[in-house]
């Protein structure tokens, strides 16, 4: 069991990575990513999310963030379905207008499927092993390997399509 100050220190150390992971899970919606991380901290503060030492703290925290973001996005999707076609059309137009300004890297990541994006981010940015990723995403190691190799292939293809490989490195 962690004392509150210990929790705080550990979470503080992981804060930046947690936020970027939340951002990845929330399809790079910054407001939603902040809300999700806030909900996760509240869950931890209230003792609703309990760390049981079965995995590393980082893997556990990222798993909580992932499932919280899934819930949050499901709620948003429900709200979006309640909108009429006109409002949906406006939302899509705004999204389209916004996309050219977005970073190339973010655009490439958004082109990948959700699970490929998550696996690649966890592997290449957060330095998790495929076993840890499988535990975090509650997937079999075989599925993770598939997402990993397909994601890598797609990512490389997209890099060559945009011909921006050198710019990104």
């Amino acid at each position, binding site marked *: 069991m962690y004392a509150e100050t210990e929790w705080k220190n550990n979470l503080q150390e992981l804060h930046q990575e947690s936020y970027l992971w939340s951002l990845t899970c929330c399809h790079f919606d910054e407001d939603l990513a902040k809300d999700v991380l806030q909900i996760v*901290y509240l869950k*931890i503060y209230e003792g609703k999310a309990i760390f049981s030492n079965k995995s590393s703290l980082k893997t556990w925290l990222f798993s909580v963030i992932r499932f919280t973001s899934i819930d949050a996005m499901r709620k948003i999707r429900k709200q979006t379905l309640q909108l009429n076609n006109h409002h949906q059309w406006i939302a899509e137009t705004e999204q389209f207008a916004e996309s050219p300004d977005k970073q190339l890297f973010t655009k490439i990541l958004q082109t990948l499927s959700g699970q490929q994006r998550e696996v690649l981010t966890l592997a290449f940015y957060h330095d998790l092993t495929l076993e840890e990723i499988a535990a975090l995403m509650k997937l079999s190691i075989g599925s993770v390997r598939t997402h990993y190799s397909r994601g890598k292939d797609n990512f490389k293809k997209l890099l060559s399509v945009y011909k921006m490989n050198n710019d990104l490195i």
Partner: protein
Amino acid sequence: MKSENEKLKDIFTNNLGKGVEIPQFESMWRRAAELKRAKRIMIWKIAASIVLIATIASLLTLKPAQVRHNGGMQISSWSEPTRFLVADHENNQMTDLVHWTSPTGSLLKENNLK
């Protein structure tokens, strides 16, 4: 020469979160504490409201039910001149109310004194 994975790692490290403003941890942690307190207060308020509503509802429903059970009149508060006819329980001298034909007998129909 860097391997493919090392190149990809570099791409991710250099570009993920580029231009993104990271929210402050302290303010988020403080907000979590505030939200927890607010939530607890709200739960207490809801619980208190439920108790209050239940108490008021039980008072409002039990009182008329009790009155109905006694035929619309509490026998203890009956002060008619014929009250003495049902008074003496202890000495088994109670008047047989089934055959009682007094004009005020209707008041006793549902008072369970038969």
